[in-house]
């Protein structure tokens, strides 16, 4: 049964990691998009440059969520405790 407990805990840990890890990047992406919208509203002629930079920035921010996903997958599929 120890193996089962570890698996249950691993699944819980993965879910918690992804859910909480998604909070920060979600807020950050929201702020980034809001700021970009504000900037585009002020300067519509710079929309091209702004949106390109926004996409790159969003990808960088999203990477933080990806990190938690990687950790979650590590816990799920490559758990060293599960053997």
């Amino acid at each position, binding site marked *: 049964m120890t193996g089962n407990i570890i698996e249950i805990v691993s699944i819980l840990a993965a879910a918690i990691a992804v859910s909480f890890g998604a909070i920060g990047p979600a807020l950050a992406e929201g702020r980034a998009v809001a700021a970009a919208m504000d900037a585009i509203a002020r300067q519509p002629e710079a929309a091209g440059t702004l949106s390109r930079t926004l996409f*790159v920035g969003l*990808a*960088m921010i999203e990477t933080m969520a990806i990190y938690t996903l*990687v950790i979650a*997958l590590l816990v799920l599929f*490559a758990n060293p405790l599960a053997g």
Partner: protein
Amino acid sequence: MDSPLTLEPLFHIGPVPITAPVVVTWAILVGLAVFAAVSTRHLKLTPGKVQTVLELFVTTVDGQIRDTMQRDPAPFRALIGTIFLFVLVANWSALLPGIEPPTAHLETDAALALVVFIATIVYGIAARGMKGYLGTFAEPSWVMIPLNLVEQITRTFSLVVRLFGNVMSGVFVVGIVLSLAGLFVPIPLMALDLLTGAVQAYIFAVLAIVFIGAAAGESPGRPTSEQGETSS
């Protein structure tokens, strides 16, 4: 469900186990080599369509390097361009059915990051000399030496995990949705993967430029930007 973190060897060449990413990479390598050889065989001063695209690509890479490093882009052009091109093609190879992109596996990303890491050291030493390059770890003071060393490792790992996580998660999500919903549902996700793949290729290349540029430092003979600044 298969773990995205493990690799099963397809076959062995002698003692060497050959895995699926290696085979796909070979295919990409051959495809790019043939494309490059064919498309650059008849270069003319008045370019055709393919040549125009190639020149636009090279010029854009040059512009990025020049903007970021404030240096002559010639020594870095091939490395940065190859990184971008390979990562882009590898990411987009997921479009072909039955093929898993090589970058969705940790080993390929680690290999790329390793090349960037070594290139950082090589270019840094080439630009500043051994003593000068080691001196950059003591900036702004010697207290920062451990922190700078750790930063070298962590940013390389960050590079690896960023690319791996993005591509792998895309493939993983598409796989899950495909197993749940069937035929046409994953198509929007695959389109999203195309965007993610392009952006990640760009980010990987730009971060490589930034790392190498930081190691090589500001060039004493700063190149005057003769060509128009290419915005990213």
